[in-house]
């Protein structure tokens, strides 16, 4: 309630028209939404408010909505990636993709990659956060070291892993052979194992994000809750299930959502791991395929259609996720 009074709005239609239901039956003293006379300070405030958020709105429009809208438009065209000619073909690109075996393979590979990387990031991230929430000597140092993979540039991480996993001179095979775990070296970057390698590498690189988020939440849980549970005789597992998990479910909801979006659209790690090898085909996820259609097949329209499909899949999954975990969403 502002305490200010407003003049009665003029009726929209002459008598005889059905009166609109009053949204605020409390009377004229209550503020109303809608048109405000030009002379009121509120109007100035509103205008000033609009002006101040205008740059941000402009940036959102220019950097988010315009590219999305342009991608949508591009997906309706048959367009060479750098040749200026284009032709409107409606939904033909989408029909083409529906029948495109490579598209379904990429979708499958992308799903496999996302699900496994998210699963292991969460398991590893939560476990590591629980450990690092305990008190032990050198905890600060360990916390700093554990964050290291998330801080290094992807290209450095990929080069490092490619070197470690190289089947002829890589350290991983060297140790596996030296300890007699394997008889023959494994081709980690070959067709059979490249998906496993990229999953392991991605989990290693991104689990610190989960760790950091969960650890931050763990540190705010009142210790009294654990003390009470202990007094009631709860084991460590039961304390985790009945105290920790309910406390972190809000942040877990957000973390799973963010990581799902990021892993499903992950391009750099997958591209760099697969680039320069024929085995890259076996980790050709949807973002990589979209890139290839645009910049190696030079079919910008099809590339855009793939990007739109990815966007649509993410929107649908996010809505379903929000509906499934409404309560967690509220907490998150």
């Amino acid at each position, binding site marked *: 309630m502002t305490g200010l009074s407003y003049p009665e709005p003029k009726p929209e239609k002459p008598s005889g028209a059905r009166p609109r239901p009053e949204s605020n039956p409390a009377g004229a003293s209550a503020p109303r939404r809608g048109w405000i006379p030009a002379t009121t300070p509120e109007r100035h405030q509103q205008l000033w408010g609009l002006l101040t958020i205008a740059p941000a709105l402009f940036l959102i429009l220019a950097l988010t909505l315009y590219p999305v809208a342009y991608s949508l438009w591009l997906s309706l065209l*048959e367009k*060479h*990636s*750098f*040749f200026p000619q284009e032709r409107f073909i409606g939904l033909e690109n989408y029909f*083409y993709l529906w029948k495109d075996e490579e598209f379904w393979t990429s979708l499958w590979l992308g799903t496999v990659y996302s699900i496994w990387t998210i699963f292991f990031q969460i398991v590893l991230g939560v476990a590591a956060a629980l450990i690092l929430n305990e008190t032990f000597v050198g905890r600060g140092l360990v916390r700093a070291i554990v964050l290291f993979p998330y801080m290094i540039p992807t290209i450095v991480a990929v080069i490092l892993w490619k070197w470690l996993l*190289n*089947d*002829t*001179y890589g350290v991983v095979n060297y140790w596996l052979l030296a300890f007699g775990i394997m*008889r*023959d070296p*494994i*081709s*980690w*970057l*070959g*067709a059979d194992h*490249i998906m496993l390698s990229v999953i392991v590498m991605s989990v290693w690189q991104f689990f610190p994000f989960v760790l950091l988020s969960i650890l931050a939440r763990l540190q705010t849980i009142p210790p009294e809750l654990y003390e009470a549970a202990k007094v009631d005789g709860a084991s460590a597992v039961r304390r985790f299930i009945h105290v920790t998990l309910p406390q972190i479910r809000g942040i877990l909801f957000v973390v799973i959502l963010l990581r799902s979006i990021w892993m499903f659209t992950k391009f750099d790690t997958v591209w760099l791991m697969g*680039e*320069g*090898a*024929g*085995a*890259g*085909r076996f980790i050709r996820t949807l973002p990589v395929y979209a890139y*290839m259609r645009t*910049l*190696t*097949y*030079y*079919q*910008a329209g099809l590339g855009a259609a793939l990007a739109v499909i990815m966007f649509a899949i993410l929107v649908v999954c996010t809505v379903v996720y929000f509906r499934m975990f409404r309560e967690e969403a509220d907490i998150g």
Partner: protein
Amino acid sequence: MRKGALIVFLVLVLGMTSFAWGADKKVVRVWHTETEPQTIAAFQQIINDFEKLHPDITIKQEGLAWGDLEAKLTAALAAGSPPDAAHGQAVTCASFYAKGLLRDQEDIAAVIGRDNIWEPVRMQCFHDGKYYGIPHSPNVSLLIYRKDIFKAKGLKQPETWDDFIKVAQAMMERDKDGRVTRYGLSLPGTPLFINILVGELTRANGGRLFDLKTGRPTFTEKQVVQVLDFYKKLTDTVLPPGWLGHGYLDTFANLATGKAAMLYQGYGRGAGYIEKYAPKGTGNPEHFGVMVKPHGPSGKRTAAQIDAEPWMIFKNAKYPEEAAEFIKFFFKEEEYIKYLHTVPIHLLPTLKSVQKSPAYQANEMYQRWREWVEMDYYYFEKDLARPTLIIDWGDLKLPFGLEILGSGIVVDMVTDAVRGMPSAQAAAKAQARAEELITKLGYKRW
């Protein structure tokens, strides 16, 4: 107060002067594929010499990985900011020519001498009677082998692919438990190199990849299917199991360190790696030789790939004329030799006058590995070498080579075959995809 005003005035004057100076300079962007530090340094020296003579021009070089070039060029073209000059594959040059993106280089050819351009490399980007690209330097994909092992085993040079497999198997080595310690062959699994080898093997098998009249892919023809069969046999017998994950440099590491006995896609550049990484006393031509490649069951002559990226100049770039001036300068003998000597066994001269030049030949490494260079010349002089995916020079008239190269269709065909799909089926699948791509690009003529 006065002092403050003077400082402000001086800053403004200096700022405006430097702005004006910066604005007058023409910045010419040059992309190339020679990324070795010594080549970058030599190229920079050529740039410095050029800039001394042309104070209004600044040349900015950028060395790009060979496999990245096409994607980066395309992205730059899509963004409307191509470099002024760049290296490119012959198919790239053909594709860009077909799209009207290239400035002709007749003036450059005239300055360096049309007859001075070595015949085997003239066709790399020569369309409708004009040069649209002059190669910076040619060389050939070589069959490099461990000469010492070959001799010790008393092996004979293979004539056919079947002979080759037998030789490679004979050069393999196992430990007492039966584990392979040295494979017969190492191949890069890199998409570009698979494209290169498929073209090369198809030619060595008397086949073709496209119908010259209609442009229709011919992947299902017997000669191409036999290429896939050869890949399968190599994978099953003499290649390391993870070869599809190996890069180009991995193959040289395999050869130099004794993990593999032969390379089918070796280049002169490898001599440097061998000298550097082979065990002491073995990094020399006595241990690492080159031999003529075999031919396939349906072919009579062998074939190799020419690695000779033409310089391309983009007519819609900012300073195409200045880029042309720079390329003329680059080919000046004293400048050009500096460049060639940075990787002397790999960067062979495009210009006949330089080939004969004592200054060019007076290079220790060149003399040491002369046997390799002579093998390059063997392929060139017998007309056995063609660019990537090109079987017949007429293939360069097809405007979709770049798209086929980039699409990975040929690579997928090979990976399908070596992963167990019958060769004919893998070929049919690739054929259908290639036809679809060509149709979608609007180049279907059958």
